[in-house]
């Protein structure tokens, strides 16, 4: 979806931000570095990092951005739990962009990849 939204917006992004590269996260995405660090601290449940990331995002981007980012992060904290607890496979493993992104980010290293790869 990140790549799809960047293509639609005709914006150059760097997917390495998804794997935690701070400068990559800032490429083409406003407040990208701060958003990435905030997302990371929510997912890792590191409370001191979360406070620092929250304060920084609030300072540079404002409270409306912080609240929206908290909503998205909270939502995606549960998405993986649904997908894995129900064992759902990826809808179309051969779809071009999805396949490319999974390869680029090496997502097959995740244990739950089995739910999709075993369907092939």
């Amino acid at each position: 979806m990140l790549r799809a939204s960047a293509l639609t917006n005709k914006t150059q992004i760097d997917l390495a931000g998804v794997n935690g590269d701070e400068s990559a996260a800032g490429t083409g995405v406003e407040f990208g570095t701060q958003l990435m660090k905030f997302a990371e601290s929510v997912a890792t449940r590191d409370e001191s990092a979360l406070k620092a990331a929250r304060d920084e995002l609030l300072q540079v981007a404002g409270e409306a951005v912080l609240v929206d980012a908290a909503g998205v992060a909270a939502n995606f904290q549960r998405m993986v739990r649904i997908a894995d607890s129900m064992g759902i496979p990826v809808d179309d493993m051969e779809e071009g962009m999805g396949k490319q992104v999974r390869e680029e980010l090496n997502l097959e290293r995740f244990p739950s990849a089995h739910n999709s790869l075993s369907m092939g």
Partner: protein
Amino acid sequence: MTYFEYKDCPVTIREDIKQAHRQYWDKLAAPGCWWTGIERAAIAQEVRNANTCQYCADRKQSLSPYQFEGQHHSSGVLGKIALDAVHRITTDQARITQDYVNNNTNSGLSNEAYVELAGVVVNVFSIDEFNRALGLDLEPLPEPVPGEPSHYRPAQAVSGTGFVPMIPADGATGAESDLWSKERTGNVLRALSLVPDALREWLEVFAAQYLPIAGMTNMFKHEDRAINRMQMELVASRVSALNQCFY
């Protein structure tokens, strides 16, 4: 009591988020399809217990989730199988397998009850995560409403996609016609469809915290959001990557 007023919150929370969280708390307290209100509230409490459960923390670090026996930090309302399912989904979901779900079924936790339980877990976890992300205290859990579960099961649910039966893509008909339009769905939408109300509850929170399903194809900035779609997807992707989400 009015929940989710966010009176002491230093930042302004969007009204649709407050509303979605309140609506979910009302539904959480009421009897569901397979669990009573008391049991649903107990599931919610166990989501919170799981986050401070030493057994879960130790098990997460072990090579196999079956490496050693232990006792969950528990409030004692749920049975052993349901309790473990709540804690597993909350803290170690990546290692849930078909065998785990089948063994639970053989031990008395039906697929339907498991799906509703998972729906409660992910909604409560997500709402709690929103508060935690903003540095806020967790909302008190709602007072359970008496009553019996409906035991409603959609007749068109079939096995074959994931660990549990689901409504097929062309099966959102009749009483389930509101779940998705025509055949425009995906496995993540179908995941909870064995208990249609669990999916409905999930969708309401999804729409407020992220985007309404109808707006998913809009890759630009949504009018009522402060961040554009690329910003949203960067947050979503980073969270998902750290959670080892292949889907």
